[in-house]
């Protein structure tokens, strides 16, 4: 796999004042690397209410074509709010291996 270039290489490449000149670039910052626990969704318990989607502070939960909800693990920080709010108990936080 090609090694991903870590920006910036050196201090000389730092934008003045750490300004970001390109809008929407926060999308490229994958906060999933911060995660210690991962939400695991059990579709057999899920009633497709969308409460997890509403509460996720990262906005990284979305609904699939069958109506079930899942987290995008590139951005999920593992905060566990979805698991806390899911009243049918369809989400379990599992430690990352």
């Amino acid at each position, binding site marked *: 796999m090609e090694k991903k270039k870590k920006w910036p290489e050196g201090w000389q490449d730092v934008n003045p004042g750490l300004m*970001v000149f390109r809008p929407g670039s926060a999308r490229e910052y994958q906060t999933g690397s911060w995660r210690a626990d991962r939400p695991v969704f059990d579709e057999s318990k899920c009633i497709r209410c969308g409460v997890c989607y509403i509460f996720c502070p990262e906005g990284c939960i979305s609904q699939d074509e069958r109506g079930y909800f899942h987290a995008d693990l590139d951005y999920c920080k593992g905060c566990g709010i979805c698991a806390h709010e899911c009243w049918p108990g369809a989400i379990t936080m599992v430690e990352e291996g």
Partner: protein
Amino acid sequence: MSKRIGMEIALAAAEAVALCRPEVIAAYPITPNTHIPEHLSDIVADGRLDAEFICVESEHTALSACCGASGAGARAFTATSSQGLAYMTEIIPIASAMRLPIVMIIGNRALSGPINIWNDQSDVMYQRDAGWISMFANNGQEVIDMAIQSFKIAEHRDVMLPVNLNLDGFQLTHVVEPMEMPDQAEVDSFLPSFKPLATLHPDKVVSMGTLGLPDIFNESMKAKDEVLKNSRKVILDVWKEWKQQFGRTYEPIESCRMKGAEIALVSMGSMGETAEVAVDELRKQGVPVGLLKLRLWRPFPFQDLKKAVKGVKVLVVLDRAVSFGGPGGPAFSEVRSALYNEPDKPFVMNEIIGLGGRDVRVEDFVEIIGKAQKALKTKPKEDYEIYGVRGS
């Protein structure tokens, strides 16, 4: 054509700032700088300056408003003193980290407590490590000149850093002096309009004041340090241009009577003028004493200092602030540390003087020079002393 005027220095500072056509001024009144923003608000209200004067509810907001204005591409100015400066503390390193070329005049005053409205330089020393360019004026003319220079230095593309210009409260802010005030055409030809690197505008989206996590924090601190150190070049260029246009010389350290000096004083701000009188007196009596007026505080002028003290045996640094429990006054500890690795360095001693408005007279400098003469033979036991303190 420059005009010869007699004016209170704070008012002259405001006039000089107005000549720089700032677009946003945000300030909260605090003694002894008050006359500067007060007079600027008059100038704006009279229609002589087309600027937004924001009457804020605190200094924290004053500097925050300047940050927003500067980020939006406006030339921004503020002024403060003492607790007001302390109240800006949270925003001060942010302004420099964001590379916002705000100009701030500080009418230096002792930090509380005990509460005291009079002059020393403990307020700016409290902000020493915040990443601003920091300079000291010795008299009214220098306040006018350096206020105008400050905008040009701050806004230079290789700098883009905020500048604080220090003048001693009361000793300078409230004194009437004869000065030369440049006219609008002269200032316009010296100072180009502000061309920001980027502006906060919905047509071209940028983010300012971003998050910097551990993976970039080191690099951004290094970048900030380098840009402040490199601002020296621009500062010297701007001073050279100033001399060409206005004929007055500015240097990081101004040397007086240093030829053959075995003893030298180092001063910052208005006390340099008084010290100079004492040095002149003693020179007449054959004492080999000189004076170094430290104008540029940040970036610290290491090379100029090393050159200036060649041949000096005893160097007395005069501080107008205490570093409690530390190695001595802030200027002293920097000067001594700057010289520590030099092969032929003078003995460096420290007199902390003129705190909270305590008078500093010519006789005091004569006495201090006497102490330095003694130190030529026997080194004093203590690294520093608070000069003239009762009970010792």
